[in-house]
């Protein structure tokens, strides 16, 4: 039992508990958003344990910083009533639930059989240098497409949130 081993299970338990708290909290949407922050930060901790250092930093900055704050902003902007779970009206919901249960059961049984040792890390794995080299040489097209997508999203969000389109 090494330290990363124990830390992983602590972060995993935190992530699962706060994710459950997010979807089960029907009274207070702000508390639900706060649970999402805990999930994001514990996932960033798991990324550090998996040697994805730059991704962990970006996870905290983008998810914990930008996206969740945006959610919080909208929740506080709108005056929300509490809602409750409605009984499932469609019959196929039961089959979907059973399918999900079988999926998780198979996954859990698969995990009971022990785990693979991850191989030793190559030099510079997960750092900004290799990731940047990969992004700006092999995956340059993806970066360009993402810049287009973000521009389109900005324009779309502006038009959607505008009161009147002239």
């Amino acid at each position: 039992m090494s330290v990363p081993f124990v830390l992983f299970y602590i972060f995993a338990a935190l992530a699962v508990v706060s994710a459950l708290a997010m979807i089960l909290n029907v009274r207070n949407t702000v508390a639900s958003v706060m649970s999402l922050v805990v999930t994001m930060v514990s996932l960033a901790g798991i990324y550090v344990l998996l040697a994805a250092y730059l991704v962990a930093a970006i996870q905290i900055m983008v998810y914990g910083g930008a996206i969740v704050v945006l959610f919080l902003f909208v929740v506080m902007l709108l005056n929300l009533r509490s809602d409750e779970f409605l009984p499932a009206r469609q019959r196929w919901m039961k089959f979907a639930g059973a399918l999900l249960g079988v999926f998780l059961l198979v996954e859990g049984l698969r995990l009971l059989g022990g785990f693979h040792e991850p191989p030793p890390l190559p030099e510079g794995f997960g750092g900004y240098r290799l990731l940047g080299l990969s992004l700006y040489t092999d995956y340059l097209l993806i970066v360009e497409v993402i810049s287009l997508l973000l521009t389109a999203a900005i324009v779309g969000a502006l038009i959607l949130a505008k009161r009147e389109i002239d």
Partner: protein
Amino acid sequence: MVPVDHVIGLSALLFVIGLVGVMTRRNLIVMLMSIELMLNAVNLAFVGFNRLWPQGPVGAGEASLDGQVFVLTVIAVAAAEVAVGLGIVISMFRNRDSVNIDDVSLLRW
């Protein structure tokens, strides 16, 4: 040493929690947050598999960060999705005075 197989199991669990959130909640903001949770579960699987094969599929001896590049892509797409989705939430609240999806069932068959 981190148990990578359990990382994949955690990813499946988080994905299912997000899916249940989308299916059962009626609050559009919580549904969007559950979608974010599902995207995060996929990111976790990408990072875990990249840790399990840090030299790519061929194993040429050099570090290969393809999985983490995809994670960055997913994060950027998620940011765009949140911007547009919250714009839709705001305009829906302005028109219907509610964020309950049962109030916007006009396009339902």
